[in-house]
């Protein structure tokens, strides 16, 4: 379960994505960091499964009493080839349109035009990985073997050249990789969120009664910050926030009043008030909004 992205991120990377029903899904693009992490995770998983695959092939070979290891070498070589080229393709053509690494990070591949993600698009975006990732690695290996200075310079130029491809996602708004550009895809957040409890549920005032003035102190932004605080349930933050609110609305704390109960009651009352005004077309953005 990934938590919803921080609001700032959401603003910067949210993209309009209107379904045929006319609703904007408000998709959020995967950040460069998330995607790099997903790729590294995939790489590690690939190497692990490669080692596992090699061991299994070897074990079967030994169990079969093979004297000649050539066929097992062939199986290993083909397995390596399929894994290297097929890992991303096989997982991304699946239902989740995401490799295991992307799943962990809550990402998935989608067609930019909102249509179906085709097998061809997945092939293209992953074949281009060849120049984004494997070519720089090849240059790195070449750098180890470079003998004379000329060769060294060639390698350095090559690394700069391929570096442009590797870092390409950082230089465009939509965080598109070369493969994404050509395949017409992008990577979006597709977290699986659990529906949290409704914090305003069953709050029949609980002995708290707030005046209209006290409920006019805040707007939607503050309400949602309060929601986040209540969902996180961190004792010290809750105490600090409760104090701030009490001071702001001039609320006198009774000795047996608990911070959690107070905050929850105030949240429910404030939300009721703001939603009521929302129905009449007044959306009060934040506490500075005079609407």
């Amino acid at each position, binding site marked *: 379960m990934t938590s919803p992205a921080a609001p700032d991120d959401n603003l910067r990377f949210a993209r309009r994505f209107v379904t045929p029903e006319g609703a904007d899904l408000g998709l959020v693009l995967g950040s460069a960091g998330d995607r790099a992490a997903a790729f590294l995770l995939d790489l590690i998983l690939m190497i692990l499964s490669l080692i596992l695959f090699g061991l299994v092939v070897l074990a079967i070979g030994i169990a079969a009493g093979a004297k000649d290891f*050539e066929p097992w070498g062939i199986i290993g070589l083909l397995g390596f080839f399929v894994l290297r080229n097929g890992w991303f393709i096989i997982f991304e053509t699946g239902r989740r349109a995401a490799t295991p690494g992307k799943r962990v990070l809550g990402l998935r591949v989608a067609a930019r035009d909102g249509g179906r993600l085709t097998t061809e698009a997945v092939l293209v975006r992953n074949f281009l990985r*060849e120049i984004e990732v494997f070519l720089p690695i090849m240059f790195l290996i070449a750098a180890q073997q470079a003998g004379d200075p000329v060769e060294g310079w060639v390698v350095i130029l090559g690394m700069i050249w391929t570096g442009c491809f590797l870092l390409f996602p950082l230089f465009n708004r939509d965080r598109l990789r070369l493969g994404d*550009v050509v395949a017409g895809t992008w990577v979006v957040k597709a977290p699986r969120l659990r529906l949290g409890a409704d914090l305003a549920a069953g709050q029949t005032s609980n002995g708290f009664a707030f005046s209209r003035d006290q409920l006019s102190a805040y707007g939607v932004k503050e309400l949602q910050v309060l*929601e986040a605080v209540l969902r996180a349930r961190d004792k010290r933050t809750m105490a600090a926030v409760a104090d701030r609110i009490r001071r702001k609305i001039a609320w006198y704390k009774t000795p047996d009043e608990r911070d959690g109960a107070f905050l929850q009651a105030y949240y429910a009352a404030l939300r009721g008030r703001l939603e009521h005004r929302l129905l009449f077309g007044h959306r009060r953005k934040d506490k500075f909004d005079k609407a």
Partner: protein
Amino acid sequence: MNGDLRSNRFRTEREGDWQVLERLLAKVEGGAVSRLTADELMRMPLLYRSVISSLSVARATSLDAGLVAYLEALAARAYFFVYGARTSLGTRLVSFFRRDWPAAVRSLWRETLVAAAILTLATVAGFALVWTNPDWYGAIMPEAMTQGRDPTATTAFLRDTLYHDPKGQPLSFFATMLFTHNSGVSILAFALGFAFCLPTALLMAGNGLPLGALMALYGSRGLLIPLGGWLSIHGTTELFATVIAGGAGFRIGWAVLFPGRLTRLEAARRAGHTAGAAMAGVVVMLVCAGILEGVGRQTIRLDWARYAVGGTMLTLWLAYFYLPRRERAPR
């Protein structure tokens, strides 16, 4: 107004639907669609539309950020399912083999021709160089590829490399290595196209030079015809695949360089669409070539039979890609 918020009631009323949808989605995402019963499959679009409407209502009337985020995520997941797979894998495969693949290759004919020309020129150049001065051989051929096939080798040894049966195995380790190497080259040729075509051209030339050098070496011993058979049995398929991959790479590089009236991004996307279909076909061709190389080359040892297989494959591919056919009305 405390306690019984409108948004609260709204949530209690609709929550059941959301949970059903979430359960079905988890089922589908974990495995095949076939895990859904017919009834559940029928409910899916209805539930999807209901969650979309819930999302619109929630955005307009609820200030519960957690609820809206949840609905957005759920609606997106459902959207990808409902609009993600409009045709079954079977129909997609049929349309790929019947229409998409040959159409993509046909529309790449100019690029394919250029790639083929570069490969041929490089082969001729490699042949001419080594023919006039065998010293070139070592410079052109990567050492790992020769496996003893160099100018110092005896004619008998060279002849043996064309016909010997490596320990009676149909698929030798060396052949597998060549296959994975050559497939890698095809993919790289495609990917490098993005870098403005030039690297793909270099790669094509780099593939042709050793080929020509090898021909000159065997030719100098009067073994050109047998070598041709040895190469062509799988080579017609494999080299054709490489040439198409190069052509697909050229298409993308050209679109990025000269997008015309489109934006660069859109031009690249369109080129990628055609090139992608061609590349899916290249993968199929490479698998064919692998089978031909692994099985065919070791079991078929008559020159004329090798030529016949290679020639037949080439004719089949050419006919499949380029023979004019009646346009079916797209369904």
